[in-house]
Every structure is written in C-alpha cells, then in structure tokens.
C-alpha cells in the first residue's frame, strides 16, 4: 500500500494562484488596445516586453510525460509567459529579456549530449534520444535565483541519476562536470562582451556525485507540458532545486564524470560571491544582497505582495540535508 505523507517541501493550497487570471488580464488589456498603444509609444523596450508572446518563432512541441509525486504540488505556478521571458542566460544577453529575444533562431536539432569520463559505458544521446531514452516526468519545483527572486516551474525531465547509472561510473567518479554548447555564431553573448556580461565561455558547472545522484536532481527537457524554449536552456538543462539557479546549467552538450572537483563559471569569476555548492541558505548572505528573503515572481504588478522568507535548501532539506552533514555551510557556500 502506498502511504503518501506530505513533504515539507510541498506547497500549501493557499500559496496557489491561477495562471488564468494572468492570461485573462492580458486579454482585457489587449481588447482595450493598451498593449498596442504602449508598444507604439515605447517601441520594443517598454511594455512591448509582452514580446515572447507575439514574436517567438522557435517551435516547441508537446511532450508525453508521466505525472510524478512532484506534479501535484499545490503551489501558485509562475505564469508561463514570465518563465519564458525572464531568463539569466548570458549566452543570449545579460539582460533578463534578451534571451527570449535573441535565442529564437537557436538550432537544437541536431544535438549531441555526451556522457563521458570515469565511466565504463560512455554514450551519446542525439536529439530524439533526449526525449525517448528515459521516462519523462513532470516535477513542479521552486527555482531560487541568487539575485533573491524565485519562481515555481513545472519542469519535464528525467533523473540525472538514471543517466549516470546507465553509463556505469567507476570508482574514480567523484564529481560530475557539465558544459554548455560553445557556438559564438549562434550565441551572441559568447562573442560580444557587451551582450555576454564578460563571463568566460563555455559555461561550465559541476556537482558532487552524491548530489548528482539525488532523487531531486533533474535533467529537464521541457516545461509547461512542452519542450524547452531556447531561452530556458533547450534542448536539455540541469535543474537542482535546492541550489541557486546559476547551478542549473543550460543547453548541455557534455556530462563528464571526474575525479576532482570541477571548476565552475561563476565561482571562477567571483569566488567570494559564488561558491561551488551554491545551496540556498537564508543564513549566508551574498555580499551584495541579503538571502534571508526573496520575491516570488508571479502574476501581479508592482503592488503584488510577494516577498517571502527563504527556506534552508529552498525548502528541500528533507531530501538533501543529509548530503551536507558535518559540513560548515558558511564556509562551503
């Protein structure tokens, strides 16, 4: 018999709001002609940021997926429109709205994801295999950005653990290193310092093997029932909900099992600000902003009262706290 107890990371009914409210507001505004008028006044930069809706040319497709215990999380989802238009993906520009604008022509097919390194059976997944090799399930996770905003996103994906197990890691495999595609022709931020925020490309990330094997760690291939749009890391990205968003590397081409702790992009750039672990921790502040609370991005404008307290491990302590037993998380931030 399946006894389902409520995890502390699950959401309360009271936290839930409805995406339809957001959409219906937009509809009313459109009917009133406000959106059009404003776009006329302010070009593409102002409220024309309703951009992704009208101008997205990238084609996503519906995915078949299984519902999981993480699917029925009764939290207020961040509206899809916001999830796909508010992105930190410096390869397509350092401003939040640039990736949605500049990534529309990104080619995801053909794609190759290599699983390599300290494994007995290295393998490669091509584009179709990303969606057919493992069982895709839906998981609603909170995403907490190091900049102190957060979202709630229905991801589609599969366990990283299943991918790693298939490759049969050997005893030297202590860490997992990830790499994003490097293609300056397609990713303007990689060739243009102004767009790319001056960080070093390709973007690299890493996890300890036990973090990678944790049940929460997801390789995502979709959101909101469809394949990922490029601004969210198509065709495949990492999702580690108890860590700050920058750990969730996008558009992955290589997963390499390694012996030593791999270098990571933001840690290289500013080691005092961005640690290797990057666990969400309300007690350890970023030098330039407090991490004790966050703003949940939902529907609702300037007056939305959406500041909430940040939870240790983003509320996923039950699942991951054991990984860090005995570690000083102030030092290993």
């Amino acid at each position, binding site marked *: 018999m399946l006894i389902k107890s409520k995890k502390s990371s699950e959401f309360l009914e009271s936290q839930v709001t409805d995406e339809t409210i957001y959409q219906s*507001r937009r509809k009313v505004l459109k009917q009133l002609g406000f959106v059009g008028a404003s776009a006329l006044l302010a070009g593409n930069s102002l409220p024309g940021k309703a951009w992704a809706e009208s101008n997205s040319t990238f084609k996503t497709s519906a995915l078949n997926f299984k519902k999981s215990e993480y699917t029925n999380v009764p939290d207020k989802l961040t509206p899809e429109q*916001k999830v796909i238009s508010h992105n930190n993906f410096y390869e397509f520009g350092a401003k939040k709205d640039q990736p949605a604008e500049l990534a529309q022509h990104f080619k995801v097919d053909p794609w190759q994801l290599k699983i390599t390194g300290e494994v007995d059976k290295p393998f490669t997944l091509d584009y179709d295999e990303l969606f057919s090799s493992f069982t895709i399930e839906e998981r609603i996770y909170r995403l907490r950005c190091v900049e102190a905003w957060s979202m709630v996103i229905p991801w589609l994906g599969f366990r990283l653990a299943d991918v790693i197990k298939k490759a049969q890691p050997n005893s030297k495999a202590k860490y997992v290193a990830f790499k994003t595609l490097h293609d300056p022709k397609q990713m303007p931020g990689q060739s243009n310092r*102004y767009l790319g925020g001056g960080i070093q490309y390709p973007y690299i990330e890493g996890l300890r093997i036990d973090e990678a094997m944790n049940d929460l760690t997801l390789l995502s291939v979709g959101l909101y029932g469809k394949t990922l749009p490029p601004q969210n890391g198509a065709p495949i990205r990492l999702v580690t909900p108890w860590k700050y968003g920058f750990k969730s590397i996008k558009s992955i081409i290589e997963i390499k099992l390694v012996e030593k702790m791999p270098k990571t992009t933001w840690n290289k750039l500013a080691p005092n600000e961005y640690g290797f672990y990057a666990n969400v921790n309300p007690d350890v502040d970023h030098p330039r902003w407090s991490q*004790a609370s966050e703003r949940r991005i939902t529907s609702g404008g*300037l007056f939305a009262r959406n500041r909430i307290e940040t939870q240790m491990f983003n509320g996923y302590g039950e699942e991951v706290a054991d990984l860090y037993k005995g570690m000083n998380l102030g030092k290993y931030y």
Partner: protein
Amino acid sequence: MRNSVKILILKIITHCAALLPAVLMYYFAILDQLGSDPVEEIIHFTGISALNLLLITLLISPVAKYFKQGWLLNVRRLLGLYAFFYACLHMLSFLFFELQFDFSLFIDEIIERPYITVGMCAYAIITMLAFTSWGKIRKVLGKKWQTLHNYNYLLVTLVCIHFYWSVKSEIIEPSLYFVMLFILLYQRKDKFRRWFNK
C-alpha cells in the same frame, strides 16, 4: 527669440520629458505590463534616470560656455530637482516594492551592503542640495551656498560607484558612465586645481 521665452519653452519640454516616462513606467508596472519583473525594471529605470539627469546638469555649464548661451543655466535647477525626484522614486521603489515595507531589512541593507551605503550617502547629499535650491535659502547662505552645491561632483561620483558596484558582471554600461563622468569633470579641471592650490 527673447531669452525668457526660450527658458519657458525649455522648461516645459523638461517637465514633459521628465514626467511622462515616469508616469508611463509606473502605469505599466502597476498593470504588470512591464516585463516579467516590474519591480526590478522600475528600480533600474528610476536609478538610471536620476543618474542621466545629474549628468545633464553637469553638461549644461560647459555647453552654455562653449556656445555662449548663458540662458541655459536657468534650467539647471529644474533638472537637478528632477534628478532628486527620480532618486526619491528609486529609493522608495526599493523600499516599497523590492523590500515590501520591511523597514528593519531596509536599515540592515543600508548598513551591510556597501553599494547601498554609497547610494544612501548620495541620496543624503541630493536631498540636501534639493532643499537648499530655493532662491531665498540661496540668498541666506550667500557664499556658503556655492560651497555646499559643489558637493554635486561628489554626488555624481558616488552614484556612478553605486551603479558599478550593484551589477553582477555586466560592467560595460556602468563603465561608460564613468567615462562620461570623467569627461564632464575634466571640463572643470581649472576649478578643482584652484580648490587644491588654495
């Protein structure tokens, strides 16, 4: 055209150019039509606007001197006051919309985050300048008024530091502001030299 007419026209233009964007931005932000995170958008917009206006006030006297258009100096105070207006919006938007009235967090942030400390110092200076900009107070202060208002140079420098310090890695835009600041201060090199040679 008589100078008084030119001044009037320029003032009207200034009012429209300064007020209209603020009204529009808040209007769209309240309706959630300003990108995905209207709070971040508004804070950035008001901050940058305040900085732009401050730089324009610094631009006026070299331009007036170079083109021999002394009447331009008459709109300097108005621009400075609009910079103060945007600085108030910037600070209040941070308090009300970002921190959502958490006053203790507001105080903590001012003390603990160097870039916010710098920003608040700048805000204290611009408040002081705004409140002493009134003609009658200027007369009362006499010579001291100019000394006080020379803090404008420190103010703009602090605002540039505040901006530079607040970004994650995209330093090109704040760097461009430093370049503009340097050019504008360089125009006043003789003045600074005189201060230090006293």
